[in-house]
C-alpha cells in the first residue's frame, strides 16, 4: 500500500523539507510541492525512491547533496524502531514513527544535524564583526565608494554593429525590408567587448586578520560595480565562495552575510592546498579561464611552499593574469622572502601592495590595464 497522498505522509515530507530549510538550504514552497508530487509518483514506501525524489527536487547543487544526505538519515531514521540496516519494508514505517514522537522529532532531528556540523575536527572560528559607530560606518562607506572600478575588457565572440568591419547581412537586409526592398547602405559589424572575469582569492587566515575586513569591503565594492564578472573566494584552511553574500547592497550587510558563510576566520593557512582545491573545483572548469585572478595574501604558508608554487603555476596557465596583492609590500623595508611568495614569484604577472586605500586604488588600476 502506498501512503503517498495521505495527510500523514504529506506531513512527514513537508516536515523534512522544512528541516532542510532550517539547516540553510533554499527550499521554496514550489520545491516542496514538487517533492511531495515526486514521492507520490515514485512510491512513498520505497525508501530509496523517496531519497532520490528528494535529491532531484530539493537539491540544486553538489554542495546541497552532502547536507541533504545527513538530513535524510536524521529525519527518516530518527525512529526508535530502527534496527541496523533497514530493509525497504521497515523503512516504510519509519516516517510514521518519527511523526509519533512529535512535536520533538523535528527538534531532535535538527539537533542531530547541528551536532554533526559542530563535531568536525577542525577548529572553526567565526568572525567577530567589529562594532562601528554610525559615523565611522558612513565614513568607511564613503571611502570605499570613492574607489573607481573600471571593468577590464576582452574581445567578445558576439559581433556588434560598427561603422567598420565585415558586412552584417542580416541588418543590411532588415534595413532594406524597412525601406520596402529598396537598396540601402551596407551595414557592418565587428566583435564587441565584454567584461573580463575577475576572481578574488582573499586570505583570511590569522596573519591577515587586520586586513581581511577592508579586503572584503574592496571585494564588495568590485562585486557591486561589475556583478556579473566577479567571483570572490576566501582562502584559509578551506575554500569558501562568498560571491552571493557580497551582492547585498550595503557593505555591512554583505560582510555579515559573508561572515556567516566562512567557517575558518583567522585560522591557519594552507594556501597551496586551498588554491589546488579552487583549481579543481572551480578554476579548471572555467572560472579561472581567461580571468584576472587576484590573490590577496601575505604568503605565510604553513604547508609545502613548493606545492603552492606549483598550484600558482597551474593557475597562471589557465588565467589571463595572476596578480598577487600583498599587504606588506607597500611597507618600507619589505622584501619578498617568505617561502610561499618566493615559490610563486616566477609565476606572477604583477605584485601590488594592499595595506591602504591608495594601494586598493592601485590594484583597481592594475586590473584595468594588465
Amino acid at each position: 500500500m502506498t501512503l503517498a497522498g495521505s495527510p500523514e505522509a504529506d506531513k512527514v515530507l513537508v516536515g523534512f523539507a522544512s528541516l532542510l530549510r532550517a539547516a540553510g538550504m533554499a527550499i521554496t514552497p514550489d520545491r516542496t510541492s514538487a517533492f511531495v508530487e515526486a514521492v507520490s509518483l515514485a512510491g512513498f514506501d520505497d525508501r530509496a525512491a523517496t531519497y532520490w525524489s528528494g535529491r532531484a527536487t530539493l537539491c540544486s547543487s553538489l554542495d546541497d547533496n552532502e547536507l541533504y544526505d545527513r538530513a535524510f538519515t536524521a529525519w527518516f531514521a530518527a525512529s526508535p524502531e530502527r534496527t541496523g540496516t533497514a530493509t525497504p519494508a521497515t523503512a516504510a514505517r519509519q516516517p510514521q514513527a518519527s511523526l509519533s514522537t512529535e512535536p520533538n522529532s523535528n527538534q531532535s532531528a535538527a539537533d542531530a544535524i547541528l551536532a554533526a556540523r559542530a563535531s568536525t575536527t577542525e577548529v572553526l572560528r567565526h568572525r567577530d564583526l567589529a562594532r562601528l559607530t554610525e559615523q565611522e560606518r558612513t565614513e568607511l562607506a564613503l571611502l570605499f565608494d570613492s574607489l573607481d572600478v573600471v571593468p577590464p575588457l576582452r574581445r567578445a565572440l558576439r559581433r556588434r554593429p560598427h561603422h567598420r568591419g565585415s558586412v552584417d547581412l542580416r541588418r543590411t537586409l532588415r534595413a532594406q525590408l524597412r525601406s520596402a526592398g529598396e537598396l540601402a547602405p551596407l551595414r557592418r559589424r565587428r566583435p564587441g567587448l565584454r567584461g573580463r572575469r575577475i576572481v578574488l582569492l582573499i586570505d583570511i587566515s590569522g596573519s591577515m586578520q587586520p586586513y581581511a575586513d577592508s579586503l572584503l569591503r574592496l571585494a564588495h565594492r568590485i562585486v557591486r560595480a561589475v556583478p556579473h564578472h566577479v567571483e570572490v573566494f576566501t582562502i584559509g584552511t578551506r575554500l569558501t565562495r562568498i560571491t552571493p553574500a557580497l551582492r547585498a547592497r550595503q557593505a555591512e550587510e554583505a560582510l555579515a552575510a559573508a561572515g556567516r558563510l566562512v567557517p575558518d576566520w583567522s585560522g591557519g593557512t594552507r594556501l597551496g592546498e586551498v588554491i589546488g582545491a579552487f583549481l579543481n573545483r572551480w578554476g579548471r572548469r572555467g572560472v579561472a579561464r581567461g580571468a584576472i585572478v587576484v590573490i590577496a595574501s601575505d604568503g605565510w604558508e604553513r604547508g609545502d611552499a613548493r606545492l603552492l608554487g606549483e598550484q600558482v603555476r597551474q593557475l597562471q596557465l589557465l588565467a589571463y593574469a595572476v596578480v598577487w596583492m600583498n599587504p606588506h609590500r607597500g611597507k618600507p623595508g619589505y622584501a619578498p622572502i617568505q617561502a610561499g611568495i618566493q615559490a610563486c614569484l616566477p609565476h606572477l604577472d604583477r605584485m601590488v601592495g594592499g595595506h591602504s586605500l591608495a594601494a586598493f586604488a592601485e590594484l583597481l588600476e592594475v586590473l584595468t590595464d594588465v
Partner: protein
Amino acid sequence: MLSTATVSPAAIGDALRSTGYLPSEGLSTVVFLATAMNRPLLLEGEPGTGKTSLAEAWATVTDAELIRLQCYEGIEASQALYDWDFARQILHIRAVEATAGDDLDAAALEESLFHERFLLERPILKALRSSNAVLLIDEIDRADDEFEAFLLEVLSTFAVTIPEYGEVRAVTPPMVVLTSNRTRELHDALKRRCLYHWIDHPQLAREVEIIRTRLPDVSAQLAAQVASAVQRMRISDDILKPPGVAESLDWARALQRLGYEQLDVASAAETLGAVLKYREDAERVRRALAAILAR
C-alpha cells in the same frame, strides 16, 4: 517503446540498459520522475560521466528524435528558438511587387510576410513542434546567464511566444535534458524548474559492466584491469583531470586495437595518452604505474 503510464524506475533502468547505457538506481528514478512529472532534467557531473549519452540513450528508448542545442558564449534566441528568413521575405516582397503591379494590397502583403513558411526553426522550436522528441540543451553553463531567461518560458510551459506570429505550444511536451559542467552557478529560477541530479563516476563493478557492454570485443580481464586502474587514478589527489568513463572506454578500445589482452606496465605506458590529457598527469602516473596496476 515505453508507455509512461505504466513504467517504474526499474523498468526505465532496464530500458536504458538495453540501449547500452547503464544507469545507477538514482538516475533511473530521476529519469522516471522527469517523464512522470513532465519536468526538465538538469544533469551536472564531472566531464565524461555520461550526461550527454543519457539523452542519446533516452531518445533511443522512446524512439524519439534527438534534438541537440549546443550552448556557447554569445548564443542568442535567434540561434536557439527561431528566426525569420529575411532573405526569403525580401524575395517574397519583390515577387509580389512584380506580379501585382498597381493593385498591391499592402495589408495582405504585410500579413503574408510573417507566415509560417518564413519561420526558421531552431532546435527549441523544432523540439516543441515535434510529436516525439528529446531536447538536449548541452553545456548550458557555457551560455551567458542572460540566455537562461530565454529558456524559462520553454521549460515551464513548453511554449514559445513569437511576437509577430503568436504562441507555439508543444502538443506533446518533449523530454528536456540540460547538462552543465559547473563552470558557473546557474540561476536559481532555472534550477527551480528542473529536477536536479549529480552524476558521479561509477563504481568499479558498474564501470567494468559499462566497458563490457559498450565494447563487447574487449576481454573480461582487460575490462576489469582498465576499470580498476582508472578507479585508482580517480582517487589519487594529484591528478589534474581525473579520467571519466569516456576515457576508460577510449583506453580499453586503444588497448584492444593494439592487440593487447593484458594491461601491464609496457602496454599501459604506450596507451596512456587515451586516459590522461595533461602532461603532468601522464608523468605522475607513469612513475607510479606499477603501483596502479598492482592487483
